[in-house]
């Protein structure tokens, strides 16, 4: 979609160009552009890591504030906006859980915002409809608490726990990918409940891993 936009500096029409075709001055970024388009990678749950990194680095090399250290205040501000947006996009797309949540939001689901309520949501939303998952999670948590209380000589059990949680994460990620692929291909309004459920589980597991890591650190 082309935008009807004029250069803030010389008034020439610039459409979507990041630099004015007339005076070549940097333009503000389009806040509405999605992370995939911004970094030049195809929209989907699987992202080519090399392509993502290259897209990110090439764009930072053009827009980063260090490139505008001697430019005017307005140019520096736009460069800051570009670099900030690029960093947000890169951080989101390189992490599968953040990326999954972002895709769900792009498709109109609740996703996970980068907001506090979002951060808390994982905890609060676990109550309904998933007794089996809740059961397993509680068991693993109990074991972790037990090991943390008396960590001496628990190296092997901690390693087993790590294997189990990693296996569970891999399973959830596979499920998430399937659900998202279906949703992305849907011709009518996509069903996102499945993807959202996997995301909730994954966030739960991530918190568990953080606590497990604290214990591993103690043992190391």
């Amino acid at each position, binding site marked *: 979609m082309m935008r009807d936009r004029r250069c803030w500096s010389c008034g020439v029409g610039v459409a979507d160009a990041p630099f004015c075709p007339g005076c070549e001055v*940097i333009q503000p970024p389009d806040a509405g552009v999605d992370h995939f388009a911004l970094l030049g990678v195809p929209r989907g749950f699987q992202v080519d890591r090399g392509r993502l990194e*290259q897209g990110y*680095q090439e764009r930072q*090399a053009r827009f980063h*504030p260090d490139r505008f*250290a001697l430019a005017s205040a307005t140019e520096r501000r736009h460069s800051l906006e570009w670099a900030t947006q690029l960093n947000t996009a890169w951080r989101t797309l390189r992490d599968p859980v953040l990326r999954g949540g972002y895709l769900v939001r792009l498709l109109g689901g609740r996703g996970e915002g980068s907001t506090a309520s979002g951060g808390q949501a994982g905890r609060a939303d676990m109550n309904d409809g998933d007794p089996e998952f809740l059961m397993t999670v509680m068991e693993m948590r109990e074991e972790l608490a037990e090991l943390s209380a008396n960590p001496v000589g628990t190296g092997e059990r901690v390693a087993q726990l790590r294997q189990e949680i990693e296996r569970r994460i891999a399973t959830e990620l596979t499920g998430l990918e399937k659900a998202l692929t279906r949703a992305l291909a849907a011709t009518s309004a996509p069903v996102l409940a499945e993807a959202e459920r996997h995301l909730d589980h994954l966030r739960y597991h991530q918190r568990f891993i953080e606590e497990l890591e604290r214990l591993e650190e103690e043992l190391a």
Partner: protein
Amino acid sequence: MDVLLDIAEPGTAPKPHDPRPRERRRVVGIDLGTTFSLVAAVDLQGKPACMPDSAGSVSLPSIVHYPGVGGAVVGQVARDLAITHPQDTIASVKRFMGRGLTDVAAGGYRLRAGSGGMVQILAGERWRSPVEISANILDELKKRAEEALGGPLHGAVVTVPAYFDDAQRQATKDACLLAGLEVLRLVNEPTAAALAYGLDRGREGIYAVYDLGGGTFDISILKLARGVFQVLATGGNSALGGDDFDHRLAELFLKEMGIAQPTPGDLHAARRAARQAKEGLTTSATASVRLDRPDGSPYQREIDRAAFDVLTQDLVRATGAPCRRALKDAGVTLEELQGVVLVGGSTRMPAVRVFVADLFKREPLVDLDPDQVVALGAAIQADVLAGNRRTDDLLLLDVTPLSLGLETMGGLVEKVVPRNSPIPTARAQDFTTFKDGQGAMAIHVVQGEREMVDQCRSLARFELRGIPPMVAGAARIRVTFQVDADGLLTVSAREQTTGVEQSVAVKPTYGLGDGEIERMLRAALEHGAADLDRRHLQEARVEAERVLHALLSALAADRSLLNADEMATIEAAMTILRGAMAGDDQRAIQEKIQELDRATTFFAQRRMDHNIRNVMTGRQLTDFE
């Protein structure tokens, strides 16, 4: 001619957004280290080099001696004076930067809490902030550079440990300001090191930089590709370094010498011997130590490397956890690492090298001088930021070293910008009110990884006012953190339904206040070095004023407690002090303040007794039970 013109070839004129300079700017990179400091610049061929002093030494000991009269003495001479004047000679001042009294070990110095909570050190008969002491070191380097480059500096890139928090960074910036240096950028030490390494060999891939300096430990994971130096993660401990190894060894010597309460002189001597032994052990299997006991008899011992390693192994091991955490934050496995670079003089210790090789499962790279590599990298970045270099061949992408968050209910921290987020960054978090009709919300910004507010560093507090009355939980307050490419934080809060907004550029509550810096600066700029003396004179006058005022109010209240002779004595002392205030001898004023103090001690005592009697008179005994 000291201006080099950059003439574009026809048809290749610089683009407007490609700001190529018209002249080459005199800029330097400065490594302001705990034990040594260095200054480097890039030559016309694009090669960075450290600048030597007149004796040919590039490393300036970060030691400042303050004689009672005259200016500060910096470097090797100060180091020699440390033995005879231990308390007036400040070493490792970097440990005190941006720190409060409770954060630091005195190490034999006379400390007190200064304004803004930052520690102050008594040296050369005056309380000094670590910022001022660091500025003296920077000043020495600046002079060296200006002589070598033939003119005043346009600016400098100054390095800090990656793990320095906001208060420590701000203190470093303040020191530069005070030394009259324009800071182009504070760059993290490991990043600067990687810059020097990467450019030196045209290396690509993912590298770990393990930087164990005199007083700080840093680990950074960086990715080098196509001229972009991207920091993936950093970690470390800003209070762990080579000094700790010296102290450990010095403690052993003092214990064996039977010195339970070492004087500052004992400490200096023991630490000096310890440092020499430690350095000796990097190349030899044993080192011998000679010190004098308090009774004059010699203390002598041999120490071998194995014993030293056992004594300090917990220090070496303490670097492991930050390394593992940084790798994890970077999302990088050991197999993906291209290499491990060693930085900092303390990485010369064989035990450290063995530990690093074991931790990262490979032999570390040591082909650049670990003492110089940080300054060299800083010089390269300074050259880039000054526009001396073609702007498209190098870019540094850095991260926030510590998480930034907000205090929530119960003193808990809600992280808004997680550590190792690439900067610049902007992150928002929504909060709500917890009481019906709550009209204001306190925003408390903190930095650190711990979960409780009191375990993190407080950066700023402000209040969002004017929230319209709503039931608890109905307001939506979005707090946005924006960190720019320099790592400076701006926080704004906005109530979403009404648009009420407050914002604050975060200056750490620690460190020097704006006014204080400005005052110090004005003094330094307007009159040169002598004016710090003028400032102290002014401070002494203010102090005298305060003392006189207090005494006058006491006399107004309790003159009846004095007989005529006593009154005359006090009045004479007051007149003498007023006389001294009219002159400009700061020390004379201070002396007269003390004399007046002595002349009025009995009066103060008498007033106190009198007041106590007054309070007790007319009360029943039961009141005191």
